């Protein structure tokens, strides 16, 4: 079995088997991180470009480490300090990168669909590292990997995703991935943050945190995007935090062994209280560790394609 595609743009188009293959492959890559020499020669001679049009610490570092541990050459391009700030279009930048024979382009962009647009126009493999409010497939995959690792299965479990669902690419990727693997999903948030008609994606909607996390196996908290404050989504941060912020007391409403996840960056004291983020239920740092292994698996499986040069 293999991943017979050029690009990874979202979890929506992946089959259950393809997701399973990526997660299984990632198990082997996780072992490499525990070695003294955390590097294998697999992608020697391949070039990976990280093209980041939005700020990122975790995802960019994670992709960079993943590429480097596979011996690929990794170059980072960010908006500041590149000709992007001189007004070059996305397509022109990408074509120039391709002209330098890059094998893979990892892109993060504020516009939904940017990765797909790129994939259509370049021969290099394109990996979506987050496009607008559309998808963030590798985050979804590392969340699936972490849940499967901690709970042993995904089929039949119940996952609550709480926060600004409407603007969250993490939520969308997770909903696609989790439903394909047979989990039940609840989304929780104020009505302003839940898109209309989201039930069609196979989730149930809750506006009350207590009712939403009752008996769930996993609680996924989303970051409240502080830059959106004042746009009428919620009155004040303090009020949001009172009602939807996950505290130690509120966590008791879920199963006693429920996992608490967060894609980062965490706003401590807003959507999640420090004692929960650092508590025993929290797997937030496991998510980060697993992210590198999952991204290595994705790079490895996509590299089975003939290189653009050959």
């Amino acid at each position, binding site marked *: *079995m293999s991943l017979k595609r050029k690009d990874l743009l979202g979890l929506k188009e992946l089959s259950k088997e393809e997701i399973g293959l990526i997660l299984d492959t990632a198990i082997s*890559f996780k072992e490499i991180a525990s070695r003294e*020499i955390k590097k294998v020669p697999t992608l020697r001679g391949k070039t990976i470009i990280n093209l980041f049009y939005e700020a990122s610490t975790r995802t960019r570092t994670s992709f960079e480490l993943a590429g480097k541990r596979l011996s690929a050459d990794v170059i980072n391009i960010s908006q500041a300090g590149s000709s992007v700030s001189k007004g070059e279009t996305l397509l022109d930048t990408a074509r120039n990168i391709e002209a330098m024979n890059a094998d893979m382009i990892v892109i993060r962009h504020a516009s939904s669909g940017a990765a797909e647009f790129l994939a259509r126009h370049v021969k290099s493999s394109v990996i979506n590292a987050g496009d607008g409010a559309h998808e963030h497939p590798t985050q979804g995959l590392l969340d699936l990997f972490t849940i499967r690792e901690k709970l042993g299965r995904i089929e039949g479990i119940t996952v609550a995703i709480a926060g600004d669902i409407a603007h969250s690419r993490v939520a969308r990727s997770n909903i696609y991935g989790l439903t394909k693997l047979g989990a039940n999903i609840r989304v929780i948030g104020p009505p302003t943050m839940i898109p209309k008609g989201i039930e069609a994606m196979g989730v149930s909607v809750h506006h009350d945190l207590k009712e939403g996390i009752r008996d769930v196996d996993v609680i996924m908290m989303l970051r409240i995007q502080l830059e959106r404050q004042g746009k009428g989504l919620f009155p004040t941060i303090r009020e949001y935090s009172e009602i939807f912020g996950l505290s130690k007391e509120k966590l008791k409403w879920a199963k006693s062994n429920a996992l608490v996840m967060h894609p980062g960056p965490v706003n401590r004291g807003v959507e999640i209280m420090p004692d929960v983020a650092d508590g025993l239920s929290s797997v937030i740092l496991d998510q980060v560790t697993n992210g590198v292994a999952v991204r290595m698996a994705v790079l490895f499986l996509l590299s089975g394609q003939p290189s653009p040069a050959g």
Partner: protein
Amino acid sequence: MTITLYEKVICDRAGINRSLSRIAHEIIEKNKGTQNLALVGIRTCGVHLAQRLKKKIFEVEKVEIPTGTLDITLYRDDLGSKKAPPVLKTTEIPFDVNDKVVVLVDDVLFTGRTIRAALGSLLDYGRPRAVQLAVLIDRGHRELPIRADFVGKNLPTGKDEKVKVLLEEEGEDDRVVILHSRREDREKPA
């Protein structure tokens, strides 16, 4: 499409067992005992053969030799040329390889490229005092300067023949067969 022209059994259950018994004794003899000895099987068949050797060495010396498993996929030199990457399994080396005498175990020694990859992988775990190689079948046609220290059977073969080791652990009757087959798309053997 593969058309098998003929298939011949070279070695049966008893034959495999006798070869492994002799190899086990040779390993002990060459290393003057089991001090610092470790076995590492190369996936998939080498792993089972390493386990069998471990058992045989235990029967003779009453010592449990540390035994590991190597998946060489990430170290192959033909990854880019394959249409699909092979399925990746885990590597498990549950002991410190530094200063050990590691005996690599594989089923068939052919071009030597698998062993080259295995050496690369093993040496990333540390610096063994020595690495030795045990194979059930040496079929010739080396493409690299590699030779085995312990050989079950030397088997002269044609380059387009295939040698397969089938084992109980994989749900087969123990045997070694030689196949002459022709593929329409003429893929090179790994």
